[in-house]
């Protein structure tokens, strides 16, 4: 039930993120969620897109270093304590969060949480058992 996330290596140089978005736009790929991790010298762009395979091929041909990473996408209540509930489950299951980013879903009024865990399988199991909705590729792309 893991979802394909696209990761792109970016140098900390002007116009690099723009170049990625242009590349995706040409292939009519829509970005659903995005985050950038940055250091002094480089950044890592992480995205959930509607057409991951097209995006991967396009970026690769465009000369970017790109990879797929499996992430877990969960839906949670957009209320105080919503994220806490998810994290409590993961903590209980002994799964560590490597990174996380979130966005609101205006259609459902819920919030969407993208997680990368050190123990993905255990995490998914625990979340599902706790009644938290773990989204599939199809579901997230149609949000």
């Amino acid at each position, binding site marked *: 039930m893991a979802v394909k996330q696209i990761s792109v290596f970016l140098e900390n140089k002007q116009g690099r993120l723009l170049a990625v978005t242009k590349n995706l736009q040409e292939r009519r790929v829509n970005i659903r969620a995005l985050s950038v991790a940055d250091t002094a010298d480089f950044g890592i762009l992480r995205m959930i897109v509607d057409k991951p395979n097209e995006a991967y091929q396009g970026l690769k041909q465009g*000369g970017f270093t790109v990879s797929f990473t499996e992430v877990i996408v969960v839906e949670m209540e957009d209320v105080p304590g919503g994220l806490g509930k998810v994290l409590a489950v993961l903590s209980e299951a002994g799964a560590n969060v*490597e990174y996380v980013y979130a966005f609101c879903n205006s259609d459902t009024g819920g919030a969407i949480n993208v997680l990368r865990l050190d123990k993905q399988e255990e995490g998914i199991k625990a979340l599902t058992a706790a009644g938290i909705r773990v989204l599939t590729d199809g579901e997230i792309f149609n949000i």
Partner: protein
Amino acid sequence: MVLYWNRPRECMERGQLEVLQLRRLQKTVQAVYHNVSYYREKMQEADIYPEDIRSLADVVNLPFTTKQDLRDSYPYGSFAVPLSQIVRLHASTGTTGKPTVVGYTREDIDAWAELTARGICCVGGGKDDVVQVSYGYGLFTGGLGMHYGAERMGASVIPTSAGNSRRQAMLMNDFGSTILCCTPSYALLLSEILKEAKIPVEDLKLKIGIFGAEPWTEQMRDEIQKRLQINAYNIYGLSEVMGPGVSIECPEKNGMHIWEDHFLPEVINPETGEPLPDGQIGELVISCITKQGMPMVRYRTRDLTSITHEKCACGRTHARIARIMGRSDDMLIIRGVNVFPSQVESALLAMGEVSPHYHLVVTRENNLDILEVQVEVSENLFSDKVRSLEGLAARVKKEVENTINLGCKISLVEPRSLPRSEGKSVRVTDLRKI
């Protein structure tokens, strides 16, 4: 007043000097032919034998010696005497991780001290001087080479070695150093440290600087002379041939005298190997004609310069070489350390996880050379975890630094962002204004 350390030798009439050179060259060629296997093999291959050297002009018939020969005979294969007669070993950076080893007999060390003393005297030094040697001591020949020369001259030597600049500045002031020996860029750095430490240059006793081990310019000389209020002189040497003191300027500051009673210099076209006339720029080739431990015959220095045999206004008859203008190979000199791009490449390949494109960028900040190694992050190296990429950069840094013996900065860059040219990649961007 012109001072000479050894006037009869330094001002020897050229005819006599050449007689001496021929005699010494013949002796050296005999020695290497009989004692060093690669010389013998090369000479036999070229069908030339020691008895064929009848005049100095015959030197052009002898095969060249290259750094590769030294590498192939690592560590002791190029010594012309048994190890029991070697009293000192030095080493310089090699291209493949293995250094180039040089060995000296007691007489070689003696001659080296003598020539370096001659050089310090040539720029106006004497026994009353306090000589601060801020070249690195150790396997590098700079520190110990200058040290022995200054000591031979009778000066008071402060063996500070390189680094710890604050302390260097303090000692320079407190001990009343009159002569500073270091790389030109380090001299500029020290001038700034002095300023920071609020030590007025006017209070210093410093009057002479002997700078070398890296390429520099007349503009840098002007700058150093102005900042430190001294006379700055250019010195040249290389460990394969001896070390510092092979060649040095005189107060005329118009070329460096190469001590021809110990070395036979030639300038050749680096492409064809043909000898070039005086005044034309080419590669400096040196034959050692008095060395015993490791006599280099027609050693290709890869340094580009020109030569003149005209008598100098200082009265010395020994030929002068111009300021080194560059290299005929891709070697870089960074903070006095020889760096070949291929070393970085072998370090990266040794890591196993990479066969990357890389690019070296050399800059100079605050008068110190900075080496940046840019490494392309290919798909097999990429991880979407910051920690992993930073770990990769740290591993690359460690591996590269261990290989080149020099600190560097590693930058991970996007693939295909580094310059490529047809065939050979452009591996180096040198942004130093030297």
